[in-house]
């Protein structure tokens, strides 16, 4: 098993029931670090939102390597989004450390911002899109912001939308998409971005079973291509495809 799970306190983290990852990913990351060194490490992560009496996350440790697809499950409110936000550097955790590509992410605010920009592709729970722009433009932004030219970006964006079954809706304005379509747009955006770590928060919450399978397959192929994927999900179709699943438990935090 490549993923190490800390169990300090013993109850913050559920069973690891995944299968082993597909081995080390040579060349998946640069630098002098060992080829199978984890891309993303969270150690003893804890978080208490301001105004809440008890922590939402307590003592969670997690390592993710390239080529791994790691699931995070748990009931609503168990802190899946909070864990992903902490790992993805959107939220400074109130306890613990996040190490990205061997670098202590919160060493400085600018380091956190740089790593967040360079390493993570987000599929957010609310499918945050540029509402006034088309599906194609929404996906192209992920490439344009990396210095790509518009023509090349648009071609790759169209491919990514095709991959999630939105090939017919390229020119549709995001605000006019149905409930599930923006979710696929953000999945396509993450696929196209090429960032080494994909963080997916309920990427299939509003998608039909066939679409769910397509998204799960897309995430799987991201991992196969050498990226690391962390996916928070309620959906067994997605969880089944994960190498490992981290289960968060509300009872453990004494919140009931």
């Amino acid at each position, binding site marked *: 098993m490549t993923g190490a799970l800390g169990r300090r306190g013993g109850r913050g983290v559920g069973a690891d029931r995944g299968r082993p990852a597909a081995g080390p990913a040579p060349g998946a990351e640069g630098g002098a670090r060992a080829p199978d060194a984890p891309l993303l490490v969270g150690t003893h992560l804890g978080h208490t939102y301001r105004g809440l009496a008890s922590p939402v996350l307590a003592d969670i440790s997690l390592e993710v390597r390239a080529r791994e697809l790691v699931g995070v499950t748990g009931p609503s409110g168990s802190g899946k989004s909070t864990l992903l936000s902490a790992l993805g550097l*959107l939220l400074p955790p109130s306890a613990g450390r996040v190490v990205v590509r061997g670098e202590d992410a919160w060493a400085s605010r600018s380091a956190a911002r740089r790593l967040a*920009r*360079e390493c993570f592709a*987000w599929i957010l729970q609310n499918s*945050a899109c540029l509402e*006034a722009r088309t599906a194609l433009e929404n996906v192209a*932004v*992920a490439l344009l*912001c990396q210095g790509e030219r*518009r023509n090349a970006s648009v071609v790759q964006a169209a491919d990514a939308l095709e991959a999630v079954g939105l090939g017919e809706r390229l020119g549709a304005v995001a605000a006019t998409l149905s409930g599930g379509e923006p979710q696929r747009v953000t999945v396509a955006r993450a696929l196209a971005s090429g960032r080494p770590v994909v963080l997916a928060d309920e990427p299939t919450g509003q998608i039909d079973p066939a679409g769910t399978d397509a998204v799960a397959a897309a995430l799987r192929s991201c991992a196969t291509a050498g990226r690391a994927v962390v996916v928070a999900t309620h959906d067994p179709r997605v969880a089944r495809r994960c190498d490992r699943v981290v289960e968060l438990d509300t009872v453990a935090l004494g919140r009931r």
Partner: protein
Amino acid sequence: MTDWRPSELVREILANLAARPLQSVGAALLAAAVLVGVGLSELSSATSIDATAAGLVASGSTTARIATTTGAALPAAACARLDGQHGIVAVGGIGAVTTVAAASSPSLGFPEAAAVGNLVGALSGGSSAPPGAGLVLSDELASQLGVVPGSYLDIGGRAVRVAAVAALGARDPFFGRLVLAPSAPVGTVQACYVQVATGEYASALPSLLGAFPGVSGLTISTVLPTTPGVPTPAADWAGRLSRFAWVAGGVVLGAVFLLASRARRHELAVYVVTGTRRTAVALLRPGEIDLVVSAGAVVALAWLGLFAVLGHGGWAPARAALVAVTRAALLAVATAPLGLAWMARRDLLTLLKERTS
């Protein structure tokens, strides 16, 4: 490259504007309307001040002051020769000014100057004493020194008769402290004052200009009467409220666009979470505002220019209006980056959860 290409960022700004055509055009029209308002308020006050000045000129209260830009003196005879020409009521020249003190009040120095021709008439509408008859004092100075016409003043050991007291300071406070010594039109004068008859200023101007052949740098300005409590056109101009119109217009536009930026915070957060550097995000929304305000400013400037050219106020007030509009637009554009500071108050996660629409 790990950042937007500048050309692509510009296209992105344009695409965001084009994605909301009604809002963008509406915002540009709003900017144009506010800027035209700024320009019109400037134009109307400039025009009304001009009209005041023109009215004073037309009502005959005008005295023209002829001098040179170089400070060179004018021939006194040429000045005196203007007397009696068409439309001219009274003419007089002023010689070099020296400071003298009366023995009765030695600490009080006051300027004395030779007065050629009917300088008193040209300045106050009264009539001058003949050369040698004594001094002419302003009423202000006469009451300060306690003298009346016929009194004698002891100036540096000379006993000099006060020939007349006149309201010399009516047109220029400087003359209110002046002692004039009427003298014959020989030698030179520093300036020549000409009082022009009602409505005759324009027709008298050619003879004023032609009176001093061979003198270079001749300037003719008008000395308007000052009435206590009534501002001169110059004071009016300096004190006009419309000179703050550009500040008001710029602040209003800046504030409106700032408020409008609030609805776009979610979108800017999406750019950040997709991997756009904050420096590039900082250009996205201000870039839109800059383009919208620029478009509005072009419309406003063109409209005001046309309005002025078509005869509403003329070029000088129009120029003041165009300057005010440009300033207002620049102020609005300068406040645009504040929209971003506003956005940065909330953390990214909160902004991402915020739903627009």
